[in-house]
């Protein structure tokens, strides 16, 4: 018996690169050299592998969309209707379950609970203090958050702020920072009255105007990224990760200490805008699979991949429903069968639309064989005139 050398096996497997997908090639290359194989045995194994692979492929004309819809829809009926999952710390809840799945497929502009997962770079991810430091630069702090009380002095037209020094220390903001920020507003002269008291002197004596000014001063942003309301730091697999309430991917990626290669948001449109449509496709798959897995439902990823492909193939994120895939079908009859029948029929007749009867729904309506499976095959007879030529 002559056994093949490991490298011969690998070379033979590599020659199948156009027949088998890379993942199977890798698996074969890893496992086959461990066995003593003759050339005949190897050929037999590879023949069986290729045969089984081809058997498992989707057949031409198979209605993959319907299969995907039912494979996601049926487990969907078993999902808890309204669930809020607490991501780590108690006070932090994130929409999950069916509401979140609907949100993903509807491609809402903003999710009901925008959230970011911020990973940190090597210098910051292992130290809690450094993680907190990055966190402080992400979480927005308004002047309101660090003031104990505000007084309006109507007689001199000034606003007196009493700052909470303890909170300021916690957020790493100095009194000078506050004064600088107030001066940039250019509403009046800023003066430090006491250790923790700042007066803004203006010449406005109107009560309403002063009230408005007070609100404007309190809404002054001192630190952080716009849109990030709150942060929670958690230790996960040996590194510190920041979870945020609110989302602003473009700005957070630029914050120092953030690992821009892993940081993500659950806002799909933001991902598409900052990282592109392919990243959005990946995020749709990741989010949808995350929801399904969290609910303990075993849905094959290929179904979700098909949905994500359909949602992104026009180059922007389209929802599944009436403003997206179902609403933009080329066939009038298919659209009429979906929702508001009369509107679609009326508009189509006004603009003189033609239905080519290429899809499934149209053909069901007119009573023809639907173009699925064997129905998608058409036969052409050679006419007598062309028979002579060929």
């Amino acid at each position, binding site marked *: 018996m002559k056994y093949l050398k490991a490298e011969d096996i690998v070379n033979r497997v590599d020659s199948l690169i156009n027949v088998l*997908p*890379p*993942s*199977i*090639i*890798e698996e074969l290359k890893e496992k086959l050299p461990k066995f003593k194989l003759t050339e005949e045995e190897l050929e037999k194994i590879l023949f069986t592998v290729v045969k089984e692979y081809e058997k498992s492929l989707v057949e031409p004309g198979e209605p993959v969309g319907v299969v995907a819809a039912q494979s996601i829809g049926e487990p969907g009926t078993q999902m808890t209707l309204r669930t809020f999952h607490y991501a780590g710390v108690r006070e932090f809840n994130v929409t999950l379950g069916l509401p979140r799945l609907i949100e993903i497929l509807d491609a809402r502009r903003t999710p009901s609970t925008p959230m970011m997962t911020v990973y940190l770079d090597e210098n910051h991810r292992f130290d809690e203090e450094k993680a907190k430091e990055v966190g402080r*630069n992400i979480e927005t702090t308004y002047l309101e958050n660090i003031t104990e009380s505000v007084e309006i002095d109507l007689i001199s037209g000034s606003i007196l702020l009493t700052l909470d020094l303890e909170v300021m220390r916690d957020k790493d903001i100095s009194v000078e920072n506050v004064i600088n920020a107030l001066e940039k507003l250019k509403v009046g002269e800023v003066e430090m009255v006491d250790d923790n008291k700042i007066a803004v002197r203006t010449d406005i004596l109107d009560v309403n105007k002063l009230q408005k000014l007070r609100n404007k001063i309190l809404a002054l942003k001192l630190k952080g990224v716009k849109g990030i309301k709150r942060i929670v730091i958690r230790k996960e697999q040996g590194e510190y990760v920041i979870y945020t309430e609110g989302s602003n991917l473009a700005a957070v*990626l*630029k*914050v*120092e200490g953030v690992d*821009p*290669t*892993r940081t*993500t948001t659950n806002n799909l449109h933001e*991902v598409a*805008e*900052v*990282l*592109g*449509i*392919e*990243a959005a496709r*990946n*995020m749709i798959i*990741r989010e949808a699979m995350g929801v399904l897995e969290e609910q303990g439902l075993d849905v094959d*990823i*290929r179904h979700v*991949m098909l949905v994500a*492909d359909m949602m*992104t*193939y*026009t*180059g*922007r994120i389209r929802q599944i429903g009436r403003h997206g895939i179902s609403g933009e079908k080329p066939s009038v009859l298919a659209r009429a069968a979906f929702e508001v029948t009369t509107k679609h029929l009326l508009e189509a007749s006004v603009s003189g639309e033609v239905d080519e009867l290429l899809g499934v729904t149209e053909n069901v309506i007119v009573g023809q064989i639907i173009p699925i499976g064997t129905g998608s095959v058409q036969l052409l007879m050679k006419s007598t005139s062309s028979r002579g030529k060929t």
Partner: protein
Amino acid sequence: MAMGSKFNIFDHELVPEHILLSKEEAEKVLMRLGVKCNQLPLIRSTDPAVRAIGAKPGDIVKIVRKSKTAGISIIYRYVIPS
């Protein structure tokens, strides 16, 4: 606050590799698939990944996806103006 140098979006784990095809390569791909370019999936010229590789409307971009099922899967997108 900013890190100075702009971060490359292809370093992000969500972004697959995008490759701009030359006219000849694009022609070959269309021949092999037996389709016209407007039958490919689309990608906008304002897409961050398209801008990063400098593709223009009318170009074809090859995308090398990391797939959980096939290991690597290659798809093509046709760049459209937006």
